[in-house]
Every structure is written in C-alpha cells, then in structure tokens.
C-alpha cells in the first residue's frame, strides 16, 4: 500500500519536473526571481511565492494563540466527556471542504475586513490569511491536543505533589513534553494552508504583484494555488504558459513537502 503511494508521488513529481523543463530552460533563474507575469511574454513566479508565504504566515500568526490555548484548555481543564465533544467538533470542522470557506469568505469576510479597516476593497492578503487561519484552526487544535493529552499522568502528579500550581504544572511539565507533537501539528496545518486553492482564490484579489511595502497586509496579491486556479484551464496541455504553471506547481510541491517533512520529524518524536 505504501509502495503504491510512493510510486504515485514519485510519478507526480516526475511529471511536474518534465513539464517544467521548457520554461526553466527558457528563463532559468528569472523564473523564480522574476516579478512580472504576463502570459505570452514573461513568467516570473516571485509574486506568487510571496503571496503563498504571506498568506500562510498571516494564518499561522492568527491561529497559533487560539489553537494552542484551545488545545491546553481542552486537554487540562475539561472533563473527559467535554473533551470528546470538543474533539468531535474539531474533527468535523477540519473536514469541511475549502469552497464552503471560500463562499463564506466572499459573502462575509471580505466585506467585514473592508468596513473594519476602512479599505477601498476587502480582497486582501489579510482576508485570505484570516480565512485560512479559520480553516486550519481545527486541525492544529486537535493534533496539539493529542500531543498534550499523551503526556503521561505521572508528570502531572509529580509536579502537583511538589507543590506547583496547576498553571505552573502545565507550563513547566506538560508543555515541554508535548512540544514536538505541537510543532508537528503546526507544520501540518501550515502545509494544508499553503495548498488551499479556492478559498484563497476568491478573496485574495488576484493581482500578480508584490505589495509595496512588502508587509502591507491590506494589499491584494496572488498565491501559487490561486494562480493555478485562475489560469490553468486556459493553457492546458502544451506551450510555455503551461510549462510555467507546472513549474509553479513544482515550487508549491517543494514548499508543502518541506513543511510536511519537518512536521513529521517533530511528530515522530511523540510516537
């Protein structure tokens, strides 16, 4: 079974590499570093790489306090029954497909961001980041909670018998033990955020430009996934544009693979 998965992934990787050869031969490093993308003339991937990183970064900054706080609360303060309730809800939400979030984003989030910050338009990096944060919150919460709950009871008992308060016990005894699992949960959530297409595509603005200044969250942008979502259908099969889009896909493949690998390395230490 794992052999089949390996073959499929290797096949996908090989396909992406082969399809990327024309554009990389044509533009070489200018593909990764170029800031300008205009079909038929030039293909620069930097704005999309920037967009993916920014949106994922915003999502993680927003989600970490909430997910970790929620995980700690669920693991250490709730009764067994309440905990199962929370876990079930989180796992349910984690399964909701991206388009639902996308529609909610268009209908509610974009308008809210526009009005709250007095912008001319609500399709921004911040909006996409917020939406992604909401999407990956359940995943990170439930996995981090697993890590915390897996810390053996003797650590807690010993700390409490030594005279620590509950909060001190959580901070000094439980969290350090659960850290590898928590880190793993975060990286897996980020991997999902980076690949999310439709929700981001509907609220990010679709402008192939790096914001000026680069940290302006109220600017429209384009992520790798949203670019593929918008342009793939018109270029299918052949031509330099198709090769450029496939190369973008290859870049995303590497980025997500990197995040997932790091995440798994941390999780291995838990099990």
């Amino acid at each position, binding site marked *: 079974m794992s052999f089949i998965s390996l073959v499929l992934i290797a096949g996908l990787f090989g396909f992406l590499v082969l399809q990327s050869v024309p554009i990389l031969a044509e533009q070489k490093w200018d593909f990764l570093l170029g800031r300008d993308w205009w079909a*038929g003339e030039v293909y620069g991937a930097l704005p999309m790489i920037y967009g993916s990183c920014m949106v994922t970064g915003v999502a993680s900054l927003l989600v970490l306090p909430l997910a970790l706080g929620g995980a700690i609360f669920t693991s250490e303060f709730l009764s067994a029954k309440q905990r199962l309730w929370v876990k079930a809800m989180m796992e349910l939400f984690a399964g909701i497909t991206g388009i639902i979030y996308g529609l909610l984003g*268009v209908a509610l989030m974009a308008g809210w961001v526009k009005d709250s910050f007095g912008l001319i338009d609500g399709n921004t990096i911040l909006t996409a980041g917020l939406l992604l944060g909401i999407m990956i919150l359940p995943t990170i919460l439930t996995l981090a909670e697993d890590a915390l709950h897996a810390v053996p009871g003797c650590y807690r008992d010993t700390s409490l018998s030594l005279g620590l308060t509950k909060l001190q016990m959580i901070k000094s005894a439980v969290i350090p033990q659960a850290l590898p699992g928590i880190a793993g949960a975060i990286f897996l959530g980020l991997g999902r955020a980076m690949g999310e297409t439709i929700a981001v595509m509907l609220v990010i*603005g679709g402008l192939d430009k790096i914001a000026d200044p680069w940290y302006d969250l109220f600017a429209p942008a384009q992520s790798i996934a949203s670019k593929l979502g918008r342009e793939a*259908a018109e270029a299918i099969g052949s031509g330099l544009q198709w090769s450029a889009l496939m190369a973008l896909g290859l870049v995303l493949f590497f980025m997500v693979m990197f995040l997932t690998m790091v995440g798994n390395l941390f999780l291995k230490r838990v099990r």
Partner: protein
Amino acid sequence: MGASTGNANEPLVRISVVGSTTVLPIATRTAEQFVKNSNGEVSITVNGGGSGVGIQSAGSGRADIGMASREITPREKKRFQTPGLRTYVVGRDAVACVISSEVYSSGVHALSKEQIGDIYLGKIKNWKKVGGPDREIVVIDKEAHRGTRHVFMQYVFGNERARAPGARLVIGSNNEEQAKISQSDSAIGLLSIAWMNDDVVGVGIRQAGEIIEPTLENVRNNRFPISRNLNLVIAGEPRGKVKEFVDYIMSPQGQKIVAESGFIPIHPN
C-alpha cells in the same frame, strides 16, 4: 439528466460546450430547448471558464463546441492549425464600462476613452477627477484571456493584450465582475451589457463631442464603439448532432432565444 431513453437504436449523443461566460446564457437556453426537441437522443453540458478556455478546449478536442466573445488570436490560430478552427457567429453584444451605482448617481454618467485609459493605467486615482465623489477608484481588471477584456482593451488602448497597471483586483467571469462591482460603492469594471443591472451601471462613452449610451439600440445601429460578435468555435467541420445544434442556434427559434437573453440576433428584423 441525460438518461439514455427515447430511440432505443440510437446511442445517446453527448455534446460538451465550454467557454465564454457571456455566450453561456445563450448556449444554456438553446441547449435546453434543443434537448427537449430531440426526444432524449442528445445530452448537452455547458460550462464557463472564459473565451480563452473555450477556444483552447475546442482546439484540443476537450470540448465539442467552444464559446468565445472575441475573435481567435493569431497565437491561438497557429496553435490549433490542425485541424483548424471554424467560427460561427450566433449574436452580437457590447462591452460596457460599468461603475458602481453610487458613483453613477453622484454624477458620473459618461467617460471618454482617454479617461477610462488613464484610470486603468493608474493615472487617475480618484473619482473626483472625473466629476464624481471624493473617493478612491477601485479598478477591477479581468483575467487576460477573457473575451470581454480583449474587446475592451482593443477599444481603449488599441491593443487587446494591453496591461492595466492601475488595477486593484483581477477577477474572472461576468458573474464575478457583477458581484464585485455591486459589493463596492466605488468600483469601475468591464462587463457585457446583458449583465448590467441596478447596482452595476454602464456609463456612456464620450466620443467626438457626443455621448453614446450602452443600449441595445446603439449596438444595433453600430453607434456604440465597443461591440463584438458572439462566436461558437469548432475544430474542423461540424457534423451530426453538433451541426444540428449550431444550425438550431442560428435558426429563427434559436435567434429568438438570443434576443430574449439580452443580445442582438445576427439578422435583426
């Protein structure tokens, strides 16, 4: 839908139609009628995606019929040399420069080609420069392959592939454009006139001292400067049910549906 009933000896013929969201309503409504008339022999699926996707799908064989609200570009012609693309005109439409209704009611009723160009180039950034309220303009651009954009840019800049550095957003279908402009109180965009409504108003074009409104009348008598043919694109010679479907759209019954959808029939009487 699409069950294999009716004539037991004839296998069900499936026709796929893909492309321009401007032509989409025509294709959907004529397909409904055509399928009804065919007694279960034909099943037609219609999808959007844009003119570029329509031409691409027809040329590569992924769809039987491509829809395009623009002409085929030289690059596309060359790419699909074999078996060669054929164009069938099924109606006429105009592309309006549309703005949010709030801006229209504040006094911006017409714009010149130069003003529109400057807005899309980012030279004019505030509505007050063209007689409107003191608000920043939300410039909405379209994906580069879209037929509506080709036609609009051809008029404004003389180049169907012109860049718009002043753009704030890039969106896709006519549907999405309509939604984004009605959500904003300060937006400008480009839209097929059949898609205009109360929230999304088409401005008159100021040209040579007169103002030409984006109405069907002005398209019929060729006064409105931004108009285009609505095309079906087919690779090679259409045969069988595909040919029948195209003939149906170009027949008086089909053309009646074209007119009811808000476009100009090819032989207006």
